[in-house]
C-alpha cells in the first residue's frame, strides 16, 4: 500500500535532522520543568503514607519507569513494523534509537522496585509478579540490542530487529499473564504494596508530573540519538557531505 506523499516527505531524514535539534531543546525544557514540579511535589509536599512511611516516595521513580519500559517497547514494535512494511528509514531509526533508553528505564524499574521491596520484605529480590515480568522485559530489550549489534548492514539490522520486537510484543501479554499465574499460585495472593497506595490527590499530581517528565525525557534523548543514527544512515547522501564536508562543525 502506498503512503501519501507528505509522509515520505516528512519522513525524509534531511528534514528531520534539522527539525530534531530544535525540537529536542524545547522538549528538554518541558522535561526539566516537569521533573522539578514532580520531585518537589513528591518528596516534599506529599504526606507520608500511613503504612509505608516515607519509603513510598520511591514510587515516583518506580511506577513511571515501569510504565515507560512497556511504552517504549511498544514504540519500538510499532516503529519497527512501520519501517518493515513501508520501508520508511525514519521509523527504523526511531526503533533502533529507542531500545537503549527502554532498556535503561527497565533496569531503573527493576532496581527501584528491589530497593522499595527491601524495607517491606527484608530481602533485596522477591519473586513478585511485576518485578519478574520487568526482568523478562529487560531480557527482551538486551536480546533486541544484541541482535542489532550483530549485523554489519544497518538496514538489515533494523528490519531484523523489527521482527524480533513484533514477536516480543505478541509475547509480552503471555509472559505477563503466565508470571502472574505462577506467582499467585506459589506465594499465594501476597498483598503487594507495589501498587499505588490509596491515591490521595496530593500524591497523584506529582506522579503525573513524573510520568510526563519521563515521557519528555524519552522524546528529547531519542531525538539526539536519532540524529547520530541519521548521519550514519545517510553518510553517502549529498546533504551530509555539504553539511560536514565543508568542515563547519554544527552544534
Amino acid at each position: 500500500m502506498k503512503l501519501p506523499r507528505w509522509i515520505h516527505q516528512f519522513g525524509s531524514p534531511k528534514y528531520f535532522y534539522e527539525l530534531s535539534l530544535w525540537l529536542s531543546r524545547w522538549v528538554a525544557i518541558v522535561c526539566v520543568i516537569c521533573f522539578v514540579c514532580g520531585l518537589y511535589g513528591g518528596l516534599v509536599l506529599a504526606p507520608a503514607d500511613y503504612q509505608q512511611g516515607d519509603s513510598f516516595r520511591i514510587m515516583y521513580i518506580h511506577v513511571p519507569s515501569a510504565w515507560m519500559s512497556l511504552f517504549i517497547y511498544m514504540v519500538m514494535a510499532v516503529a519497527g513494523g512501520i519501517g518493515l512494511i513501508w520501508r520508511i528509514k525514519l521509523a527504523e531509526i526511531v526503533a533502533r534509537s529507542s531500545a537503549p533508553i527502554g532498556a535503561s528505564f527497565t533496569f531503573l524499574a527493576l532496581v527501584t522496585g528491589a530497593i522499595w521491596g527491601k524495607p517491606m520484605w527484608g530481602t533485596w529480590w522477591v519473586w513478585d509478579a511485576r518485578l519478574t515480568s520487568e526482568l523478562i522485559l529487560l531480557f527482551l530489550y538486551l536480546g533486541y540490542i544484541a541482535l542489532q549489534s550483530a549485523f554489519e548492514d544497518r538496514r538489515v539490522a533494523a528490519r531484523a530487529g523489527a521482527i524480533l520486537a513484533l514477536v516480543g510484543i505478541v509475547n509480552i501479554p503471555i509472559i505477563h499473564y503466565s508470571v502472574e499465574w505462577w506467582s499467585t499460585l506459589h506465594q499465594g495472593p501476597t498483598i503487594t504494596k507495589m501498587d499505588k497506595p490509596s491515591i490521595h490527590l496530593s500524591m497523584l499530581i506529582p506522579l503525573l508530573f513524573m510520568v510526563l517528565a519521563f515521557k519528555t525525557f524519552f522524546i528529547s534523548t531519542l531525538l539526539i540519538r536519532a540524529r547520530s543514527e541519521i548521519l550514519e544512515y545517510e553518510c553517502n547522501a549529498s546533504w551530509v557531505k555539504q553539511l560536514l564536508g565543508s568542515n563547519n562543525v554544527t552544534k
Partner: protein
Amino acid sequence: MREYLNIFFVILRRDLILAFRNKAELINPLMFFVIVIVLFPLAFGSDSALLKQLTSGIIWVTALLATCLSLETIFRSDFEDGSIEQFSLSRYPLTLLVSAKILAHWMTFSIPLIVIALFTGIVLSLSSQTISALFITLLLGTPVLSLIGAITVALTIGLRGGMLLSLLILPLYMPILIFSMLAIQNAAVGQSITAELYFLAGILVLAITLAPIATAAALRIRLS
C-alpha cells in the same frame, strides 16, 4: 490446493531423509539431554528427597536447553548451500515451505526427546500421574519451542556469537516452562491440570498460525 500439499510433503520427506542420513546431528542433542540429566544427581546426591521433587523440573529445563541447541539445524545447512534462496524464489509461499521444515525438525528431534524424557522419568521413579502430565505438556510444549525457535534461528543464521540465539529465545520460552511445570506439580498432588493445558494449547495454536509467517519474513530479511 493439491499442489500445495504435494510441495509440503516433498519438502517434509526431503528433510526427514536428510535427518536420517546424517545421524550425528540427530543424536547429539539427545546425548546432551541425557548427560545434563545425569549431572543433577551428582550435584544433589542420588537419594536425597530434594532430587525427587526436582526431577520433573530438571527434565523440562534440560529439554528446553537441548531444543535450543538443536534449533540451529533447521536452516543452517540450507542457508549455506543456497536452498533457502531457491525456496524464497519458488512459486510457492515461503511460509508453506518453512512450516514443512519446522514440522520436520519437530518430528526428527522432539519426538525422540519426548521418548527419552519419559524413559528418564520412569528410571528416576516419578509417579505415574507426573509422567502422564510430563508427556502431555511435552507433547503440547515442544512444537511451540520449535516454532518460536525457528523465528529466531531465521534471524540469526550465520551471525557471529553463538549465544545470541539462546539469549533471544529463552525469554520467549518462559511461559511454556511455567505452565508445564504448574501442570506437572498439580498432577503430582492429584489436582486437575486442564487449566494449564488449555493455556499450553492456546499458545500452541497462536504459534502455529503466526510463527511460520514471521519465520518467512525473517528469512527474506536475512537473505537481503
